[in-house]
């Protein structure tokens, strides 16, 4: 272990960045994500080539489908960007949920269930008060989602704080409870639409999030209704700012991070760990519940049911997004946009290059592997001296952080790491 007098700061390695110019700093912090993306695309090219595809064609189409760049005559760039934003919106909320829990030392594998609960609550409110005007109904729907999600998260927090019940198990179990409840309500249940099976009644017209491009306007030769992106993305960005403010600018956020870095140190500092755990899970549930509400209020169909909530994986993809974004606000937004671009780009290459849309998922996983392994660190001469299974590598920051945080009481430097 390094000397106990070393800084306690969890992101200690970043303190070395303070002496650099902003340009050097930006280059250093972008090196890992950018190199990971480059390595993943190279590995992905191998996968495409081995399975008999043309990597260049696939990536050209992926770029067009995901980011709207370099499209020929066969696509409208604005439409592709709109698809990416639409796919990224729920991922941002759900990943913020997973990220805030990670920051507090908790693994929220139940963003999915909290999201479903939020969606159920917003549909119930949207149907019950369908006649309300938009200025009342839309906030009510969003609030219902937040509260229902927070309730789901709060149960986990209370159980963890009072009995020590492992949150991985309880969140996972509640996923199934939420899924079964939604199925009960929609499949021949009280919320089912009388006209179509497996789908709920629509929410009131006032509860819908305004689209970015109005439905009846022609935009880049496409009807506005084709553009799926809606004002939910602005709520998602606002949520990311709220996440940052809570984490960086409030006492609660400080205590949350202290508990996440070392429970022992936090306890010595007089922090009530149980209470912080409960509040962390309430907040995590609220973010995920909002994802469900925005899915309902801004979704294509404004319904609960169909395939969206029966086989939805947003809450699980969000774990990848949160980890790729290194559980920071900006990182989560960028990672969600990247995952969204890979999703919509994947759909596009399936129809335009006849390569499975699943290439997007493969690339998502490869990027995560590269970020986790940080292959950049291995480009060092001593890496060739020993056989690979016994190589003595430079000390890993993660292990040191844990060890150091265990040793010392939280110092002022904890506030200096970047969100």
């Amino acid at each position: 272990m390094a000397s106990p007098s070393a800084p306690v700061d969890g992101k200690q390695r970043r303190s070395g960045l303070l002496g650099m110019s902003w340009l050097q700093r930006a280059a250093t912090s972008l090196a890992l994500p950018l190199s990971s993306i480059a390595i993943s695309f190279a590995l992905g090219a191998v996968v495409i080539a081995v399975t008999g595809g043309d990597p260049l064609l696939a990536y050209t189409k992926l770029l067009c489908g995901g980011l709207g760049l370099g499209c020929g005559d066969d696509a409208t760039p604005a439409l592709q960007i709109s698809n990416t934003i639409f796919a990224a919106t729920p991922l941002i909320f759900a990943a913020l949920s997973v990220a805030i829990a990670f920051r507090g030392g908790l693994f929220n594998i139940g963003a999915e269930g909290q999201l479903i609960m939020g969606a159920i609550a917003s549909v119930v409110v949207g149907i019950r008060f369908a006649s309300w005007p938009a200025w009342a109904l839309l906030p009510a729907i969003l609030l219902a989602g937040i509260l229902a999600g927070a309730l789901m998260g709060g149960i986990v927090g209370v159980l963890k704080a009072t009995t020590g019940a492992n949150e991985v198990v309880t969140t996972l179990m509640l996923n199934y409870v939420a899924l079964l409840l939604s199925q009960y309500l929609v499949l021949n249940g009280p919320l089912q639409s009388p006209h179509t099976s497996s789908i709920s009644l629509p929410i009131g017209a006032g509860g819908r999030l305004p689209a970015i491009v109005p439905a009846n306007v022609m935009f880049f030769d496409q009807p506005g209704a084709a553009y799926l992106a809606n004002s939910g993305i602005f709520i998602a960005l606002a949520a990311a700012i709220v996440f940052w403010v809570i984490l960086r600018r409030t006492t609660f956020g400080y205590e949350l991070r202290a508990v996440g870095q070392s429970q022992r140190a936090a306890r010595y500092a007089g922090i009530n760990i149980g209470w912080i755990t409960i509040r962390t899970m309430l907040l995590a549930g609220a973010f995920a519940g909002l994802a469900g509400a925005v899915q309902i209020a801004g979704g294509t169909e404004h319904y609960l049911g169909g395939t969206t909530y029966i086989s939805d994986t947003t809450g699980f993809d969000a774990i990848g997004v949160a980890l790729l974004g290194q559980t920071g606000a900006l990182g989560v937004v960028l990672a969600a946009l990247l995952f969204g671009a890979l999703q919509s780009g994947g759909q596009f290459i399936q129809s335009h290059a006849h390569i499975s849309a699943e290439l997007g998922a493969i690339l998502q996983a490869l990027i995560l592997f590269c970020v986790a392994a940080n292959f950049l660190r291995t480009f060092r001469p001593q890496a060739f001296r020993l056989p690979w299974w016994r190589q003595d590598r430079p000390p890993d920051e993660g292990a040191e952080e844990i060890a150091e945080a265990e040793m010392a009481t939280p110092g002022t430097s904890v506030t200096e790491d970047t969100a």
Partner: protein
Amino acid sequence: MNALLIFLANPGLWQSTVEQSMLLALPALGGVISERSGVVNIAMEGMMLTGAFFAVVAGIAWGNPLLAVVVAMIAGAMMALIHAFISIRFRADQIVSGIAINIFALGLTNFLKDKFYGTSDVPSLPDGAHLPFVNLPGVNGIPWVGIVSQQNVIVYVAVVLLVGINILLFRSRLGLRIRAVGERPQAADTAGINVYLLRYGAVITSGLLSGLAGAFLAMGIVGTFNTGMTAGKGYIALAAMIFGRWTPLGALVGCLVFGFGNAVSARILTGSSLLWGMIPYLLTIIVLAGLVGRSSPPAADGIPYEPGVE
């Protein structure tokens, strides 16, 4: 109430409870071994799915169930090897690596499914490529005991593995070493135990077991491959492992509860009976909160080992 009793008295329900429990027990057992050696493993879901896919590919190609099971186990082990390599050699965050494996497995199996079989459904396994059911002579007629007969061959394999691995972990020298590596790798290394080797072995074993479970699901229960057919079973196995406090027999108890849950939900599809399907999951939460309480993983679980660093 009467309808409930009739529902519960149906031996078919209990027969499928046994089947579903053992399906979950295999990956849960893999998780126990991996985490006892100090490598967090949430990738059973992905390893199981990969096993299921390659079992069906091999089963359709060669029609030999034994060969297909071997292929599935190797496929699961390959996924585990990626997880082991990244989390042991590169000292990666093991949760990130595990999630990446799960996303990768879902993407890869669907990608290859589209490649091999087009965007239509995967064909069913040919006759003779299914995993056989075993008839235990003598117990068939006995009420209640009869549910252990007419089970898939993998169910019996799983029981043997459960007992065997429990003995291996807690009654053998190798088991002691695996647990030492998971609790205090520095001390184990000082005593001359190869920490890396044991961790690689443990993670790969979890891949073999999860791949076997995938083959069981695809070739013994469903008879073909469907997109994402594991549907969270690997995560349920993870929950069973934590519920059972990282022991094989504890995990088995969790698997029996969830196996019952799966068997119940397979029989009720709509209406208010869907709400009854919540019972096993709520029961788990109540038992966890009320009886099991605080459970702590092996001390070095999730912490990459580096020589010379305490």
